[in-house]
């Protein structure tokens, strides 16, 4: 079994643990550090929030310790709640939480302190107004059942003017620069945690270990371990693959656009989306939590093939392509051809998702992304509708509409598209599009919504679109859900 080497609150640390050990388990059960708490072991409550930083990262980033593989700490710096007051003086986030009465039962508090810590670090190096949206982004992944959050908001606002007298070890050098490699033997029953650094190494490992699982952020995979008690003893970590971390602007089939590496995290996508697809960027704010966005990847969201993943419907509406790689090379196919059936994809056993091509939108094109969920933040879609269109001389063209949560796969609404394409914005054409939904989508009833609700909600999104086009000065949706 490989040895993990990393910095723990400035101290070089070595551990031997099984591949499916989470950071939380490593801390609590192996290192006896119990400041970091387990609230749900599913990445939904944030009690286990810790911060990590690689050598090339500008900041410490908050992550959920419960669903992040301990082996991914290799060569990284891990900061936990125990480290913040190491020199005996409380960190400004801790001090503010005390003074604002920000803790009651205190169980969520270490996680909240760590989220505040990462916010504080960003504010110290890149000060920016703490808008409600930024605070939501920073704190939306930390559940508190006692306070109602007001004192935590006060703590966030009051801490930022107080600098942190950081201990010297905060900038300590990593003990190792090497990656965890696979053993030479080709047996399939050994414990494995391999960290390939190139795409060819990755596809080679994929071929050698067909039963191994790929792990990027672990934000979904790890639930198999914590919730369903699956043994994940063979893992290939894609987060260190250089090619998978790139974002490059380069045309495909003469179409301008961006090639996004499958390992690019949601947080890393933010600037690209904010500049080019504002509605998509807004969706990112409502995708998981900061902790999840710091780890979860675009490739993971696609390869996972969940019918309720947030990005696939949007990518379908943008006409995105997906590149698959194996030892022999790559192939590229439209994303709509990638999703075959519930949790079934076109990915062959020896293939990995390597890149996603996202076309640049035409100047006069519009993208709307509407996610409906029980809770606005950190919730999974009941229905997600993505609408792409151009409106030229009052006529709709390039209409592409896709839904999540309405079928076994993320799916284009081809009949609705046809009903609108080439049509002026009239109530009749939109009603025709609404009527076509019943032919194409038979959603199911589940914990997130009934079939009736899903059908009606999807239909109402067409009404919303119609109103926003026909009466653009009217407010047809709430600002916090806008785009």
């Amino acid at each position: 079994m490989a040895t993990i080497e990393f910095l723990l609150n400035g101290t070089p640390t070595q551990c031997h643990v099984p591949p499916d050990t989470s950071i939380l388990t490593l801390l609590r059960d192996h290192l006896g550090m119990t400041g970091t708490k387990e609230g749900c072991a599913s990445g939904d409550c944030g009690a286990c929030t810790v911060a990590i930083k690689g050598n090339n990262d500008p900041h410490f980033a908050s992550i959920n310790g419960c669903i992040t593989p301990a082996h991914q700490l290799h060569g990284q710096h891990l900061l936990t709640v125990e480290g913040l007051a190491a020199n005996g003086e409380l960190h400004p986030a801790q001090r503010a939480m005390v003074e604002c009465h920000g803790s009651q039962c205190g169980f969520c508090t270490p996680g909240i302190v760590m989220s505040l810590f990462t916010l504080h670090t960003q504010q110290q190096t890149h000060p920016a107004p703490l808008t409600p949206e930024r605070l939501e982004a920073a704190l939306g992944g930390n559940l508190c059942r006692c306070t109602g959050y007001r004192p935590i908001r006060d703590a966030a606002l009051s801490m930022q003017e107080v600098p942190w007298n950081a201990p010297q070890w905060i900038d300590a050098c990593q003990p190792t620069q090497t990656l965890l490699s696979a053993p030479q033997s080709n047996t399939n029953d050994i414990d494995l945690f391999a960290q390939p650094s190139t795409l060819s190494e990755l596809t080679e490992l994929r071929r050698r270990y067909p039963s191994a699982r790929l792990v990027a952020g672990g934000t979904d995979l790890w639930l198999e371990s914590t919730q369903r008690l699956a043994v994940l003893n063979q893992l290939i970590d894609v987060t260190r693959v250089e090619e998978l971390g790139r974002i490059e602007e380069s045309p495909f089939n003469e179409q301008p656009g961006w090639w996004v590496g499958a390992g690019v995290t949601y947080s890393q996508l933010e600037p690209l989306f904010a500049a080019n697809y504002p509605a998509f960027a807004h969706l990112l704010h409502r995708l998981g939590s900061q902790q999840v966005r710091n780890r979860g990847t675009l490739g993971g969201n696609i390869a996972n093939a969940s019918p309720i993943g947030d990005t696939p419907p949007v990518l379908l509406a943008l006409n995105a392509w997906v590149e698959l790689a194996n030892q022999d090379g790559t192939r590229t196919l439209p994303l709509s051809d990638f999703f075959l059936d519930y949790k079934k994809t076109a990915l062959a056993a020896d293939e990995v998702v390597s890149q996603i091509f996202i076309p640049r939108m035409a100047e006069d094109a519009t993208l709307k992304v509407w996610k409906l969920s029980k809770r606005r933040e950190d919730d999974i879609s009941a229905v997600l509708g993505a609408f792409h269109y151009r409106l030229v001389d009052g006529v709709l063209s390039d209409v592409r509409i896709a839904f999540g949560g309405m079928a076994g796969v993320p799916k284009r609404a081809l009949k609705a598209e046809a009903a609108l394409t080439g049509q002026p914005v009239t109530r009749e054409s939109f009603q025709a599009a609404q009527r076509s939904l019943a032919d194409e989508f038979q959603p199911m009833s589940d914990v997130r919504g009934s079939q009736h609700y899903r059908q009606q909600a999807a239909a109402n999104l067409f009404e919303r679109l119609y109103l926003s086009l026909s009466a653009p000065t009217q407010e047809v949706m709430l600002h916090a859900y806008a785009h």
Partner: protein
Amino acid sequence: MRTLTKLDGDSSRARRELHDHIQGSSPLARHTVDSQGQRQAGTSSFHESAEKHVTGKAAYIDDIKTPQDALHVALALSPVAHGLLTKLELESVKQAPGVVDVITFHDVPGHTDIGPVFPGDPIFVEQEISYAGQCLFAVAATSLQAARQAVKLATLHIDEQPASLDPVAAAERHDVVRPTHTQQRGDWQTALKQADQIIEGDLFVGGQEHFYLEGQACIVVPTEDEGVMVYTSNQHPSETQKLVAEVLGIPFHAVTVEVRRMGGGFGGKETQASPWACIAALIARRTGKATRLRLPRSEDMRATGKRHPFHNRYQLGIDSQGVIQGGDITVIGDCGYSPDLSDAIVDRAMFHADNAYSLGDARVTGHRAKTHTASNTAFRGFGGPQGMMVIEAAMDDIARRVGEDPLTIRKRNFYREGRDVTHYGQQVDQKKLLHTLVESLETSSDYWTRRQQIRDFNTASPVIKKGLALTPVKFGISFTAQHLNQAGALLHVYTDGSIMINHGGTEMGQGLHTKICQVVARELGLDLESVRISATRTDKVPNTSPTAASSGADLNGMAARDAASKLRERLFEFAAEHFDGGLDREGMRLEGGMLIAGMGESERRIPWGELVQTAYLNRISLSEKGFYATPLIHYNRATGQGRPFYYYAFGAAVAEVSVDTLSGEYLVDRVDILHDVGNSLNPAIDIGQVEGGFIQGMGWLTSEELKWNAKGVLVSDGPATYKIPTYGDLPRVFNVDLLEGHPNSMASLYRSKAVGEPPFMLGICVWSALRDALACLTDYRTSPHLDTPATPERVMLAAHAIRKKAL
């Protein structure tokens, strides 16, 4: 004492305000931060564990270290809601790596029924399975992982039977966990006959998962005699002591239960923490090893009971002004499979079916329906919130019927002179306070101006509709089980002058220990640092009541005060006799760490440390116990009449919401709260309870949706599917004030009032505001049906139903 942080994009202004706030230049400062170092009752001392919370040093159960050979327990939970367990094949479980012990129903030496008040809760299934999530057997292994993996190897033979999941049908066929109870005052039938109009309605009020962040957990260590030491996250250590002893078949004194703190309780650890302690204790005694048991989140959610869902109906007679003349209210609580605390919970729903309004000549009936779900249990408000919902729904409905603003109708129906006796016969004391409080909030929240603005906005906005509602709270304070209204405390003064106070209450985040330390510090004229609480332990203060019913500070604070004042009197007696030539007993006092006797020139000051040392050397006891029992309260179950509550706590809240009537999405734009805590024991802690209670109440009525599948298996069994409020659900504008200048009219602890539960029900205004927004779709002529939780789905479908009807 406003805690306002308006945050409308201008965070720098908010920051400045807050900075002033903390620095102490604003008049609000004293309520948020104690800048004077004056840390006594009535001041905003920080939570006693605050620094430990923020540094991760505060230890919860699973943080406690145990010996290397400690065992970890995993439980097998029934996958079906109803059936017969015909056979358990456990051989492969026993053979699994790391497994040390496997226990079933047949391995229990003592009692097998661990029902807390009434029987009905088997520790393990013997034969009949009553809910999905019921415990079948337990596995102890050398690691938690090994124990959990081993559980999966069992072969279960279950003869599955249809599950009863409809509480209304169950009540109709008298399938109940306890008999139906009725309260009646006056002739409700005549009142209905003579009324100008009759108005009726029904409402489903959903349940609620506690979602304490720290799940159920305990560690049991065998002691050298036949007993056990139990560390548990638990609101009722004495009951756990009793049940553990009974299950093991040993005397109570062989079991000691300790609770340092809980990572949240909210009622979910009042009775439902005991089963795990009993199971761990069995294993600890069988193996002789320390035994750890904590429930993973999804198992916690499936195995433990929740807030009772209720089906409520009302039929009320009103006069032309919309004032209730009388009527009939029925509440049906979905109790789950066993009684647990459901009798008292449905009672409390009945006690609060009037909320702040006189029902006139009325009958209130409460059914305790039995279903094949986990046994529903205590949860902040204890049935009160579900009862209040029926009358708050009625208030909105009456307003639409008579064409008046709902606030006008509410005020008209308030208890007042001449209409001041409840349907259970208690006279409402301080009834004027509610009028004062609501009028004050009406003004401070600018209710009527905003009402007009909202009407104007809605006229011009076809999709987005705004709603506004003010709802009051009147909540009865006392356990309705009379004997629980008692408390004890144990006070030790050590020879360095430091003080240890123990009491029967438990700390779950509500700041009880902080308040108790403040009480002792105040009684003995010391600073707060001199007073410490170690933990709640059954060997320090025995036979305690649960920390529940908002009573923690009321009862235990009085007991602590009793102990401190008795000790103080003893020291006064001693000092008066002992110190040179004798001190003036009259006017003797403890202040600022000094005993002070006499006035002016004859004043003598003796430092606390010297006083204590001298008393010790003179063989004066420096230890004292205290006791308190609430006076005056009584309730006659046979007649359904009495005075069950020592006093009432009041409050009111206004919510403004914006609703997208196409998607059902909504935002809570602004909330104003004014709440009555009498003379506050600690304004910062009390505001924390008010705000936290409000948000939790709002979550109950909006996003927190429990869902079971058709076979009765809970499918919302984790935070991915069960959505409690998160940071973004905090209203952008949130003004919270405590009502000042209105001490408790009863002789409570320093004339304070209980604060744990009452603010929870302030959240009802959000639901009412959502209904108000939807009502505008019918030009406020009817009130839309809106069951709870009012998820975006329910709101959208309600709007859709109204629009469809209009076509």
